[in-house]
């Protein structure tokens, strides 16, 4: 069957079961837009190419399947570099297709020419410049394989216009062996000897913490993580990228560690004698000053990416492998050493198993296991002494944390929450109760302001049956709000809560704490723009909330709208800061719990 390169490209996406493309056409990609008219694939026309990239990311976050975006050459391609970099930092599988000028014009500074494979080399997992239409099905299959296996990540396919127009003989690579990827061999299963070593370390530890990262979600290992925690009785911290990987309502859940993590999660890691790092990469926002991080802890580091092992912290046991498989192997190893029964939870209570050697078969290596009781007692004491706190005064300024808590309590438990970057993101991650995996979407590593609106649209497209709330900042919202036009036009009913404090709040917080309150270029104004009118102009419902009493009614109203987007402009206290906080570069031991400390006793 003869097809044009463009037809082959769309047919290849159909073969990969792509259901939606986020994109915006232009000159060089024109040939590929023609067969879209005849394809069952839904195309969502964005208003800016950055929106297409973040929508593909949001879609991938919640579905686990690669999100697809398609844009034209030159500025279309450069506009999607930020989402590629964002996806690279957070290991999000997206496939970006860019048009390119005709092969004969490459290198001549042709109209809308940009060497995008060179530009994106360092922010993609891999990219391809297709020079022969015959290669298209194979390259598309390779792109999906690379994006979605091993450590997932973004890929880009650059397709020159003459290649799209050229004729090719259709084929489809029926198996991985027909792909041309001789250097690509992602590891999945852990080295059995290392897994046994890890199991032994776990049975020797008296102050262990499981440090769960985004890799747990990428590997679909939430069930296995829960089983590991319950079998061993080890408490779990979930990083910013792993919120939802372990239920916040579980007795062993410690919540989020890191720069704005809660006191217990941060301090439990600091005092631990064993960290079981699963798909986590010892990010600087988690470790604080690396040399002072968890000084007494031995480390078991499990990651599918060998380059992460030893990158920041040398681990006593390094295991290359997929988190789900390695946890499964670890559970079998623990069972072989005698740890067969749950150590915590109802089953353990019913069986009367707690204290030294809990959950262990008699006379097994596990029966000599230290009692985790004192450790859990210490953790409970920290939790009691240092909870997250804020105070919503009656008639006082509206506290952003209060908005998050009311929103949490008025929405279904499996609501998908999408955040931008800054204070609102931290409050959302701290105060939401994540009990289900894939309900938290945010820009972690890259810290991309403007992520929330388009990512929430992508998430809603991927999970149309779920309620999707973006919790956004006023600064972030202004960066990508135009995509609400896309959402209105395509009838994608996302909801946006703007925590509008009239400032670039996180920067303001740093200037207050570390630059002697010298506020430089952080003021935005609460009512310029008028967010309600702006929402309405974009076809959305706009609601304004200025006091605590108005919060619940506004959310109720927003929850009732299901045929268009809703924007709620919450006018929040501009002076509220995110606590706890570990100052950048400081030891996690120097955690600032609240304002009294943070303001130097003022």
């Amino acid at each position, binding site marked *: 069957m003869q097809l044009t390169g463009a037809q082959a490209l769309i047919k290849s996406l159909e073969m990969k079961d792509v259901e939606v493309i986020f994109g915006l056409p232009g000159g060089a990609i024109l040939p590929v837009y023609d067969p879209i008219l005849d394809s069952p694939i839904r195309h969502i026309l964005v208003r800016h190419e950055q929106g297409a990239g973040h929508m593909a990311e949001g879609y991938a976050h919640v579905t686990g399947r690669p999100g697809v975006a398609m844009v034209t050459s030159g500025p279309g391609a450069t506009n999607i570099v930020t989402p590629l970099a964002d996806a690279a930092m957070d290991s999000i599988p997206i496939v970006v297709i860019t048009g390119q000028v005709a092969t004969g014009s490459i290198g001549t500074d042709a109209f809308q020419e940009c060497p995008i494979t*060179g530009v994106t080399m360092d922010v993609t997992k*891999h990219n391809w*410049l297709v020079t022969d239409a015959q290669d298209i099905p194979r390259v598309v299959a390779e792109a999906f394989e*690379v994006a979605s296996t091993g450590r997932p990540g973004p890929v880009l396919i650059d397709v020159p216009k003459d290649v799209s127009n050229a004729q090719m003989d259709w084929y489809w690579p029926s198996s991985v062996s027909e792909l041309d990827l001789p250097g690509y061999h992602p590891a999945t299963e852990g080295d059995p000897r290392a897994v046994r070593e890890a199991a032994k370390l776990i049975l020797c530890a008296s102050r262990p913490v499981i440090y769960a990262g985004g890799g747990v979600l990428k590997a679909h290992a939430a069930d296995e993580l829960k089983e590991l925690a319950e079998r061993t009785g080890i408490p779990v911290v979930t990083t910013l990228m792993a919120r939802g990987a372990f239920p916040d309502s579980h007795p062993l859940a410690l919540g989020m560690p890191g720069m704005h993590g809660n006191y217990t999660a941060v301090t439990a890691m600091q005092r631990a004698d064993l960290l079981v790092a699963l798909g986590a990469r010892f990010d600087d926002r988690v470790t604080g000053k690396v040399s002072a991080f968890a000084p007494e802890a031995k480390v078991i580091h499990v990651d599918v990416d060998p380059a992460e092992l030893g990158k920041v912290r040398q681990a006593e046991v390094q295991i290359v492998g997929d988190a789900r498989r390695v946890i499964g192997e670890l559970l079998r190893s623990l069972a072989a050493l005698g740890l067969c029964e749950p150590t915590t939870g109802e089953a353990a209570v019913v069986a009367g198993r707690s204290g030294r050697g809990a959950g262990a078969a008699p006379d097994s290596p596990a029966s000599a296991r230290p009692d985790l009781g004192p450790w859990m007692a210490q953790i409970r004491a920290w939790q009691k002494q240092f909870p997250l706190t804020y105070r919503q005064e009656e008639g006082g300024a509206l506290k952003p944390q209060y908005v998050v808590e009311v929103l949490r309590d008025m929405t279904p438990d499996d609501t998908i929450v999408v955040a931008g970057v800054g204070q609102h993101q931290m409050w959302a991650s701290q105060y939401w109760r994540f009990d289900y995996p894939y309900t938290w979407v945010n820009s972690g590593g890259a810290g991309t302001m403007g992520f929330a609106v388009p990512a929430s649209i992508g998430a809603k497209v991927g999970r149309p049956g779920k309620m999707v709330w973006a919790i956004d900042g006023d600064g972030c919202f202004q960066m990508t709000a135009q995509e609400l036009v896309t959402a209105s036009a395509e009838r994608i009913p996302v909801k946006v809560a703007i925590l509008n404090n009239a400032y670039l709040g996180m920067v303001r917080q740093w200037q207050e704490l570390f630059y002697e309150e010298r506020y430089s270029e952080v003021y935005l104004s609460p009512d310029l723009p008028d967010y309600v009118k702006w929402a309405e102009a974009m076809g959305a419902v706009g609601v304004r909330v200025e006091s605590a009493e108005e919060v619940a009614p506004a959310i109720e109203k927003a929850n009732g709208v299901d045929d268009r987007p809703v924007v709620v402009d919450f006018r929040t206290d501009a002076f509220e800061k995110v606590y706890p906080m570990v100052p950048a570069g400081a030891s996690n031991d120097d955690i600032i719990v609240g304002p009294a400390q943070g303001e130097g006793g003022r």
Partner: protein
Amino acid sequence: MKAPVRHHIVSARVENKAGVLARVSGLFSRRGFNIYSLAVAPTHDERFSRITIVVDVESAPLEQIVRQLDKLVNVVEIAELAPEEATERELLLATVCAAPADRGQVIALVGVFEGTIVDVGLDAMTVLLAGSPSKIDDFEALIRPFGIIELQRTGRVALPKLARRAARLRAVPSGESHEVS
């Protein structure tokens, strides 16, 4: 042109495709590390090329770079070669001042080092020498007083030494004999 003290040899088998060299060198340049020498050419299987990189860098970051290089989709296999476990060779071409009065001395030096004279002009000669990097260094130092007009070294190529119990073979008459020590 002495080799750096901390030099490491990284040998990678890569796909013989456009852009692969840029991906590999990019992992060094983005950290601000200078590549000391670089040699690239197809292997016996023309789908693949071998890249030999000599880099002046501490061991710890290099281990990280090697792991990240290994992640590149186009890199098929990669290893760091310890200098004592590698057979290394390099090629030098140099155009040397050789007025008629000096010509005999230059020719003699080339003879001692078992190099080749590949071009002769009225008052200059172009000489070729292949050998271990240290031999090339010695030769370069000795011809320098005559006046070097132009000089090009290839950068080293390297393969792992073969593991054997017996002493090293001498099937090839010992052009590289001093390298054994």
